[in-house]
C-alpha cells in the first residue's frame, strides 16, 4: 500500500484550514494599508467586500435549498418518460389505438417519480 497523498491525510486538512484563515485575515487587514477607493460610500466600510461576499453566498445557498424543496426531482424524471413516449411513438405508427394506453403508462411512471 503506497503512502496516501498529502491531501488525503486528515492532519493536513487542519493545516489547510489554518492557512486559509490566515489568508482571509490578511486580505481584510490589507485594506487598512491600501484603502479601497470605491465609487459608492458603502465600499469604504472596513471589510465590506468580505462580509458581503459571505452573506450573499449564504443567502444564495439558502434560496437554492428552498427552491430545491419545491422543484427537485429524481434524475430519472424525464428519462423514464422519454423512453416511454418513444415506445408510444412507435405504437402510434403501428396503430392509432395504442396511443392512449401507452401515454397513460408514461404518465403513471412520471407520477411514480414525483
Amino acid at each position: 500500500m503506497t503512502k496516501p497523498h498529502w491531501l488525503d491525510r486528515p492532519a493536513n486538512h487542519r493545516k489547510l484550514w489554518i492557512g486559509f484563515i490566515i489568508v482571509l485575515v490578511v486580505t481584510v487587514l490589507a485594506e487598512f494599508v491600501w484603502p479601497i477607493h470605491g465609487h459608492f460610500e458603502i465600499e469604504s466600510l472596513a471589510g465590506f467586500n468580505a462580509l458581503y461576499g459571505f452573506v450573499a453566498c449564504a443567502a444564495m445557498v439558502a434560496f437554492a435549498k428552498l427552491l430545491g424543496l419545491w422543484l427537485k426531482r429524481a434524475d430519472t424524471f424525464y428519462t423514464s418518460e422519454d423512453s416511454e413516449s418513444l415506445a408510444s411513438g412507435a405504437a402510434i405508427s403501428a396503430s392509432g389505438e395504442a396511443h392512449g394506453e401507452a401515454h397513460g403508462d408514461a404518465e403513471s411512471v412520471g407520477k411514480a417519480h414525483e
Partner: protein
Amino acid sequence: MQRAWVKRMSNLLLHPGLVLIIGGMLMSLCAPRLRTGLQLGLPLLALFLVWQIPDGVAHQLSFMDQLLTPIRSDALSRLFATIFALMAAVGGLYALNQPSRLEIAAAYGYAGSAIGVCFAGDLLTLFVFWELMAIGSSLVLWSSGTTASGRAAQRYILIHILGGVLLFAGIAGHVQSGAGLEFSAMRADNLSNLLILAGMLVNAGAPPFSAWLPDAYPEASWSGTVFLSAFTTKTAVYTLIRGFPGNEILIWIGLFMVFYGIVYALLENDMRRILAYSIVNQVGFMVAGIGIGTEMALNGAAAHAFTHIIYKALLLMSAGAVLMQTARSKCSELGGLFHSMPLTTVCACIGALASSSFPLTSGFVSKSMVTQAAADGHLLWVWLLMTAASAGVFLHAGIQFPWFVFFQKDSGLRPAEPALSMRLAMLILSALCIVIGVWPELLYRLLPFEVNYAPYTAGHVIAQLQLLLFSGLAFFVLLGYLKRTPTITLDTDWFWRRALPGTASWLAQWRITIIGLCSPLERWVSRFSNVVSAAIGVRGPLSGTWSLATMGLAVVILLIVQLVVVMS
C-alpha cells in the same frame, strides 16, 4: 465590368465563415490523414482571413430590391470572429480523436456560420447565418448518437426555430416600416424591433426559454459540448451589442440570468449541466452590460464574451476529459480524480479561477469593466446585485465544479489523463486565460472602443480577493448543505416536456365527448384530411417522383399565376 465581378466573387469566396462551412463539409469526405490536416488548418486559415477583411463594407449586392451587405467589418466584428475562429481551431485540436465525422463537419459549419453573423452587415444575411448555426449546432448535438441526445436535439431545434421565426417576423416588420435591411443599433420600442430582440434573446439563453441550454449541451459528446458552449450564446451577445445597446430592459433580464444560473447550478448534480447553467450566468453579465450601454459597459460585455469563451471551453474540455475517461458525469459518482489526472485538474482549476474573475486571470480584467460601468453610472442596486453575483460565481463554478469532480471524497476512480491532443488543447486555453489576465492590454487593444481602465489597482485587487475568498469560506462552511443528490431541478422546459403533452393527452381523452357534440364538423374535417392525404400522402401524386418536364411545367404555371396576381 468583368474584373469587378471577379473581385466580388473572390471577396465572397474568401469569406472566412464560408471557408469554414464549405471546408468542413469537404473535410468529412477526405482520407483520414488529409482530414486531420484540414481539421487543424481550416480554422487557422479562417482566422487569417478574418484579419484580411478591411474595415467598412467589403461587399454588397442587390437582392429583391434590397441592398445586402454580406461582409462588413469593424473592431467589434473582428473581435468576435477572431475568438470564434480561435475556438474552432482549439476545439478541432481537442476533438482530433472524435470518431464522428459528422460532428466535426457540423461543428465547423456551426463556427463558420457564427463568423458569418459577425460580418453580416444586413439583417437578411444575419438571419441566414443565424439559421445555419441552428442547423449546425443541432447536428453537433445529434451526432452524439445516443437516444437522449437525439431527443435533446429535437427539443433544441424546435426552440431555435421558434427563435428564428421571431427574428424573421421582426426583420420583415422592420423592412416593412421602411427602416431598411441595414443591421445597426435599434430601440426596442416597436413590435418589429421587440420581435428581433426576442429572437436574439432566445439564443442568448434569456428567460423564459433559458432551459434549452442546460437541457441540450450536456447531452452532446465529450467534444461536442465544447463547440456548443462557444458560439450560439456569444453570437447573440454580439448581435445585442450591435443591435440593442443601452436598452434598459436588458439590465434586468441580464441580472435575472445571472442569479438563475447560480441558483440552478448550486442544485445540479451533472458536472456538464453545472457548467451549462454557468454559461447562462456569465452571459447574464454581458446582457446586463449591454443594457447599461456606455462605452465602458459595451467594451466590458465584448471583452467578457471573449474571455468567457476561452475559460468555459477550458472547463468543458476538462469535464469532457473526465467523461471520456470515466464514462461518468454525475458529481455524486465522481471525486478524488486529482490523484490520476493532475494536469486536467490544474487546467480545470485555472478555468474555474478565470470564470470567477480571480486576479491574474482573464475573467478579472473583463468582468470588472462591466461592474465598473454600473458604478460609473451610479447604478447602486445594479452594482450591488452584480457584486453579489460575482461572489456567487466563485461559489457555483469556481469552487463547486473542481471540488466535486476532482477533490471531495475519493470515489476510488483512477482514470488516466486524456489523449495528447486533448491535453494540448487544455494547455493552450489555460495559457490564454493567464496571458490575458497578466497582460490585459493585449485584449483591450481589440475592443470596439478605446479603453480608459486599469484593472490592477491595489484597492480593486484587495476588494476582489476579499469577495472571492470569503465566498470560498461560505462554500466550505456550508458544505453540508451542498451535498450532491442524484436529482434534477425542474426548469421552464417542464412546460414543453410535460405540461403541453399532458394537456394534449388530456384533451385526447375528452375527444370522444367532443366528437359526440360536433360530429358534423368532425365528418367535414376528416373528409378534408382524406383529400389532403390522398394528394400529398405517401402514395399521393404530389409525393411521387416527377419527371423534369412535369416539374418545369408546374413551375411555369406557378409563375404565370403569380404574374397574373401581381399584375391585377
